């Protein structure tokens, strides 16, 4: 019978390993997120373009990557692509799969954000004779960015959590390290428990950090809420002192 305290002590002595794993997790996630954003922006533009062929191609890409499992996509990147002549390291394959997967979701998120700008905004801009460029960059884009900010942050969290699958292609990210430590020490609960704690800390840091960043760069501040479920994540914190006067409805 192991003493729980010795168990944790042993596992915690591997903290260096866990942190290196965490570093790889962060590296692959950030890289994938950057590429996913690029895909998302280009894809959303393609979906809104006049050319039907562009819309169809991106549409097919989105449906394929949203209706098949990420694990399968990781295997295709790592086992399938080399057979087609494109050998990738496990890090590269992982980044590619994560980026392609998240990119599909981001295409829809960004497209949705642009479409959510009310047509009345375009009317007002048109009547003021703002140019099409100005209308897009100064009226539509700022509003769309405010709309897509929370779902995009959430997608980043999903990438970080999804990177755990890369352990299946032997990438020594956090989950892979936990498995290694588990097989060495046989202290299962502690090994995976430590990993769970680290993931929890990271996802919370991302959420809180994005809230703070949002409070800094968005004025007026983003609406409180975010009670969206499903793919949505946190409730937004209302950070005291950064909001201006309370919201008035007509009639007050």
């Amino acid at each position, binding site marked *: 019978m192991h003493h729980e305290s010795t168990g944790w002590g042993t596992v915690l002595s591997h903290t260096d390993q866990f942190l290196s794993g965490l570093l790889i997790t962060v590296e692959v996630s950030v890289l994938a997120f950057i590429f996913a954003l690029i895909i998302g922006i280009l894809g959303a533009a393609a979906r809104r373009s006049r050319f039907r062929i562009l819309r169809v191609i991106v549409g097919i890409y989105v449906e394929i990557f949203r209706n098949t499992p990420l694990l399968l996509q990781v295997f295709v990147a790592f086992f399938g692509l080399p057979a087609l002549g494109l050998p990738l390291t496990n890090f590269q394959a992982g980044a590619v799969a994560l980026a392609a997967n998240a990119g599909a979701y981001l295409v829809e998120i960004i497209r949705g954000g642009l479409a959510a700008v*009310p047509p*009345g*905004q375009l*009317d*007002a801009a*048109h*009547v*003021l*004779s*703002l*140019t099409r460029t*100005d209308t897009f960059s*100064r*009226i539509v884009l*700022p*509003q769309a960015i*405010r709309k897509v900010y929370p779902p995009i942050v959430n997608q980043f969290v999903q990438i970080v959590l999804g990177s755990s699958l890369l352990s299946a292609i032997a990438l020594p990210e956090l989950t892979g390290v936990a498995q290694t430590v588990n097989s060495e020490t046989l202290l299962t609960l502690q090994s995976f428990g430590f990993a769970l704690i680290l993931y929890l800390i990271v996802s919370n840091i991302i959420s809180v950090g994005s809230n703070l960043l949002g409070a800094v760069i968005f*004025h*007026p501040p983003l609406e409180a809420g975010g009670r969206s479920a499903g793919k949505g994540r946190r409730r937004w914190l209302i950070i005291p002192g950064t909001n*201006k*006067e*309370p*919201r*008035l*409805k*007509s*009639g*007050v």
Partner: protein
Amino acid sequence: MIVNASNIQKAFGDAQVLKGVSLEVDAGEVVVLIGASGSGKSTMLRIIAGLEHADEGQLSVCGTPFAHGKPTSPFNGRVGMVFQQFNLFPHLSAIENVTIALRRVKHLSKPQAERSGVAALENVGLGHKAKSYPSQLSGGQQQRVAIARALAMEPDLMLFDEATSALDPELVGEVMKVMRGLAESGMTMIVVTHEMEFARKAADRVLFMDNGVILEQGKPTELFESPREDRTRQFLQRVRGAED
């Protein structure tokens, strides 16, 4: 002549919304369009603003001829429009809403634009709210900012598309006050509204639209007291019934 429209026709899909509308508005005139929903009054206004393209007909607004149903060159602020849903830019403060077109379209410098902008906001009684965002303003205040935004461009023509329909009753008054003041100062206005009091007090001419045509028009007293057409009478009775 500020607006010279003849035989404007417009269809949306299968529905023929405007079936040949002709309208002349002189400088300084205040013209009020009334009619049931679907009669085409908003569509007519939007065509004049260049937001919709007429299918048929001749049109010239503020000296700009139309071709293929749309203006041949941008109005650059000569036509101002105020919308039912205000359409303020929510990410910009009141003063930023008012000055964005002054800077980007009229190419005023920042200090010049701010001066004009603050003056426009003060004219509608909201100089003290320049830095507020639309979400911090009541509906009536938002609509007044929208009016200031249009007026800051020094338009020759102001269009109002049911400007008070989305407001709580106690806020309608403050917007109506601004609109009446504008009418008295000699602005050329075309106003689509359900507020008959405004039509009575401020309009030079009232046009009743029904089913895509102008059924009847005349001075407010004439139209309201002794309408010639049956449908005009029916409409006015229905509206009066709601007001009583």
